[in-house]
């Protein structure tokens, strides 16, 4: 595996970890605010519900920074996936499994 590909994989992993961190952060906020059922629904919904809930409550819960970071990371992740397809790296093991 060449160095470029290794760096690419590391970037992909970093994006995934950042994405997961933001999700868990919002899920914890959701658990504190709304209880276990909302947090579970957020977990089972694969980020869509916590992402929207996070934006709708960003002002009240003072988590604009996290939401902006999460949005940027998500967009960056999609761009990385497009690069993955265009460069033919899609033949490699699936890096961004869809929900």
């Amino acid at each position, binding site marked *: 595996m060449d160095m470029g590909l290794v760096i690419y994989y590391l970037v992909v*992993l970093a994006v*995934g*970890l950042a*994405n*997961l961190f933001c*999700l868990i952060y919002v899920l914890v906020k959701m658990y*504190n*605010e*709304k*209880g*276990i*059922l*909302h947090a*579970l*629904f957020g*977990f*089972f*919904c*694969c*980020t*869509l*519900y916590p*992402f*929207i*809930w996070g*934006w*709708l409550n960003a002002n009240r819960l003072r988590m604009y920074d996290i939401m902006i970071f999460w949005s940027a990371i*998500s967009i960056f*992740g*999609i761009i990385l*996936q*497009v690069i*993955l*397809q265009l460069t033919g790296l899609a033949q490699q*093991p*699936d*890096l*961004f*499994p*869809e*929900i």
Partner: protein
Amino acid sequence: MWNRMEGRHPLTLKQQLFQPVITEIFSQRAFGWAALAAGALHFGLISAELPGWSCPFHHTLGIPCPGCGLSRAVMALWHGDIGTSLNYHAFAVPALLFVGLLIVTSLLPSQPRDWLTTQTAHLEQRWPVMAIAMALLFGYWLVRLVIFHDSYIALITN
């Protein structure tokens, strides 16, 4: 609602099981529009064979989350391919029903929308709908993950 940060008393187990999750989602028009926009974007990208929103759990930990495969199952169901849909995720029908109701509640004028939300609230007060759905989904995920591990991972990853 329960708020630990404000030092209120936590809800009892029964109160937590009967939390009105669906009602709360349906009662916020902004949430409905945002969910529909995000969902349309996600399904639009998948339809165009472009990458959609990825699952951070599967992406980072290599373990599919309980909702993994659901969007592909809904897409297959939307195209009438029931077999493929069931293969991806058995909860595609309730998910599509939920999305349908979300679209209806987002588009309806205030009065019928309030009526629909009230009916949902009555249902959630009477039955722990979301708790049952979550338990079934969790059980389904656990069975796939433990018993059908290899085929499940292969299906979701590919």
